């Protein structure tokens, strides 16, 4: 890497900083608008039932943010986020079952265990009696599982389709495991019939609103964290790993570590979303954590635009809202429509709907001037080894060519 390149990159960085500073006001304004919409307008305008539904969609959006990081920015096509979603959800559900049993049952044994099991609480349930352990476990268990899996998978350089298949198999196995343990996990019925959430009465509309607000705040926090991560040096490194893993390795980084960190983050997000899903929806069953829901998580992300900050969130929300409103009127039609949309997006708009303005803009430019400008920008695009999922026309991304960041960041690692 010549010093010339580095100087050019540093120049690019400076230009980028200005553009970031200019856009920060816009980003903050957008964020504040979203916060007002979610935290003030929605609770004021929507009836409790619709608010609960929106809360459920926000849970999916939280999972989507994680998938956006792992898949969109990290190139890990994870078809098994249901596992982490399920871990968070079941941990929360076990705690709520035990808490309800202690509050109402007297015996302290959840109702379904008395009916279908031995009538005693198995040892591995016991830690979840404690609210503190539960909250910690919701974050730590998916995180640690992802850490172990991530190290085992990425250190062996398993990637691409092999990783996708592996993650999907995990989701399938997880669902089968849950179904088989009728006496301790509720089997295919799952866990349901919750009445309290950390001592709050779930039948009270005020508490339902509170739960919704909690979910909205978590989503906003997760989106903010994802944005910060994307625009940090680590974020640049992550994109570099996605686009040219071997070159990053050659520069002295361990791509496995980078990928594992993001995989863990995505898992934690899914786990937290699962834990919020349970009190909001009132049930968790193997049907919510297996292969089908794991793929469903992905569809919104792909449609929205997997490598952008807001694409996954808006995509997940859009798909969920469309499904709920359309599926009632056209039950089987929706599945075909969703499939068609997925195929169209993957085939013709790999960057998702978020890249639509950029793609249209590029088309328009191409038509308008067939002169030097078009020819100059064309090689830059085609030189990228992977079809760029990052919309290049976005002001922030325009200067942030993934590989350009590597030398600047790599300097720090030199002895």
């Amino acid at each position, binding site marked *: 890497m010549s010093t010339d390149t580095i100087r050019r990159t540093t120049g690019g960085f400076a230009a980028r900083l200005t553009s970031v500073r200019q856009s920060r006001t816009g980003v903050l304004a957008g964020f504040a608008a979203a*916060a007002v919409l979610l935290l003030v307008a929605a609770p004021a305008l929507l009836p409790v039932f619709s608010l609960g539904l929106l809360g459920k969609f926000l849970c999916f959006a939280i999972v989507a943010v994680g998938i956006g990081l792992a898949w969109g920015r990290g190139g890990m096509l994870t078809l098994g986020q249901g596992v982490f979603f399920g871990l968070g959800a079941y941990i929360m559900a076990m705690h709520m079952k035990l808490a309800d049993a202690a*509050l*109402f049952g007297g015996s302290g044994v959840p109702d379904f265990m008395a009916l279908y099991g031995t009538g005693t609480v198995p040892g591995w349930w016991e830690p979840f009696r404690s609210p503190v352990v539960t909250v910690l476990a919701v974050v730590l268990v998916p995180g640690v599982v992802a850490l172990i899996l991530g190290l085992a998978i990425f250190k062996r350089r398993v990637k691409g389709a092999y990783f996708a298949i592996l993650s999907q198999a995990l989701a399938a196995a997880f669902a089968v495991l849950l179904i088989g343990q009728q006496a301790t996990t509720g*089997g295919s*019925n799952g866990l349901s019939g919750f009445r309290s959430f950390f001592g709050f009465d779930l039948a*009270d509309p005020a508490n339902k609103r509170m739960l919704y607000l909690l979910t909205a705040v978590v989503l906003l926090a997760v989106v*903010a964290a994802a944005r910060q991560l994307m625009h940090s040096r680590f974020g640049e490194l992550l994109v570099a790993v996605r686009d040219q893993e071997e070159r990053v390795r050659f520069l002295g980084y361990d791509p496995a570590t980078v990928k594992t960190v993001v995989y863990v983050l995505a898992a934690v997000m899914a786990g937290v979303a699962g834990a919020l899903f349970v009190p909001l929806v009132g049930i968790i*069953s193997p049907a919510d954590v297996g292969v089908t829901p794991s793929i469903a998580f992905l569809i919104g992300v792909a449609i929205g635009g997997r490598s952008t900050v807001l694409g996954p969130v808006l995509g997940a929300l859009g798909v969920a809202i469309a499904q709920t409103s359309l599926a009632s009127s056209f039950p089987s039609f929706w599945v075909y429509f969703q499939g068609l949309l997925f195929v169209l997006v993957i085939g013709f708009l790999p960057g998702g709907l978020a890249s639509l303005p950029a793609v249209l803009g590029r088309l328009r430019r191409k038509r308008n001037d067939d002169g030097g400008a078009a020819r100059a920008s064309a090689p830059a695009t085609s030189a990228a080894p992977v079809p760029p999922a990052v919309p290049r026309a976005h002001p922030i991304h325009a200067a942030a060519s993934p590989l350009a960041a590597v030398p600047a960041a790599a300097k720090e690692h030199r002895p």
Partner: protein
Amino acid sequence: MKVQSIKGAFIPVAVTALAAVLTGCGSQISDPAAAGQPSGGTESCVDTSGDSIKVGFLNSLSGTMAISETTVFDSLSLAAEEINADGGVLGKQLEVISEDGASEPTKFAERAGKLIQQDCTAAVFGGWTSSSRKAMLPVFESNDALLFYPVQYEGLESSENIFYTGATTNQQIIPALDYLAEQGTKTIFLVGSDYVFPRTANKIINAYAEAHGMEIVGEEYTPLGSTEFSTIVNKVRDSGADAVFNTLNGDSNVAFFRQYTSVGLTPDTMPVVSVSIAEEEVPGIGLENIEGQLTAWDYYQTLDTPANTAFVSAFKDKYGADRVTSDPMEAAYTSLYLWKEMVEKAGSFDVDKVQEAADGVSFEAPEGTVTVNGDNNHITKTPRIGKITSDGLIETVWEAPEAVEPDPYLENYDWASGLS
């Protein structure tokens, strides 16, 4: 620069979090006895002022269960049409709002909430799988609304807010065992799908067998939807059992009976009693694979009662001569009429009044007279063992002498005392 930007993004989060906390929390559970009761916030929104009343149908119209549940939806629609043509309920026409459960428990819970809170229906009819019922139960209880559930199930449940118009275990499983005992069956092989109904049914069968000197020579489960049965069928054949008790559900039955026939087992050498195969499922399995096998239900299309003749011909008129009627369809049809009778006895659509009026309400159903038991919200039913005939229908080969009182917890059976 970096620190600054992080701060910049997190201030709004902090502010919004604070705002959320300040919005205030609702009631905490300080008195467990009072909590769990429907609170003041879930006041019924049912509109009884107009000349129509809303009811909800909640069936899986998509997904794996759609093939079974759409038939229930059809017979519910027939009942609603008939009731409307006959002047409605308390002079009000039924306005049906239909929702798709999409074969997912979570969807059932969500859609049930919509039918109760947003559509303000007076009662909801539907559900099929145990998991769909278990998912809906807390929704109906916390909103103090009514669900009519039309499918035979594993018992061990009774909710004030659910009326069970399908058979509980002592109206299906136990009569089937009584029949097998009567036929001199000494050894039974159990085959089932791996979920709560087969597991619970087989627990009951094991207890029954122990008390009645029968032997269970094998107990095998496969995941729902599994189609690989060669190992199990070979085990069944090698066991030399007198009969097989089949609690498989859905597509698995197709594979099971094909392989069962292919290894040379027949209804004469080793009969199979099935509890989830009705008229509707026979063509899918293939008549040649299942003719002569036994079923345990409370209703068959071939029943010779005036109510059934009318039901079957009305159904065929509406949906086509090639359609058949089955036990869950009949139970669903009956459930809408039972609700009508309860409402008219109560003189009100009010849930509390309907619950109060329910006990003793009876209806001349296609399966015979059924009466609601107000103690457990189940209904009396007449168990019948059927044999699949060469025309794909089921003929009754054994019938209980009289309608059997529902006993979901098997409290009147000494041998079942250790079960729940």
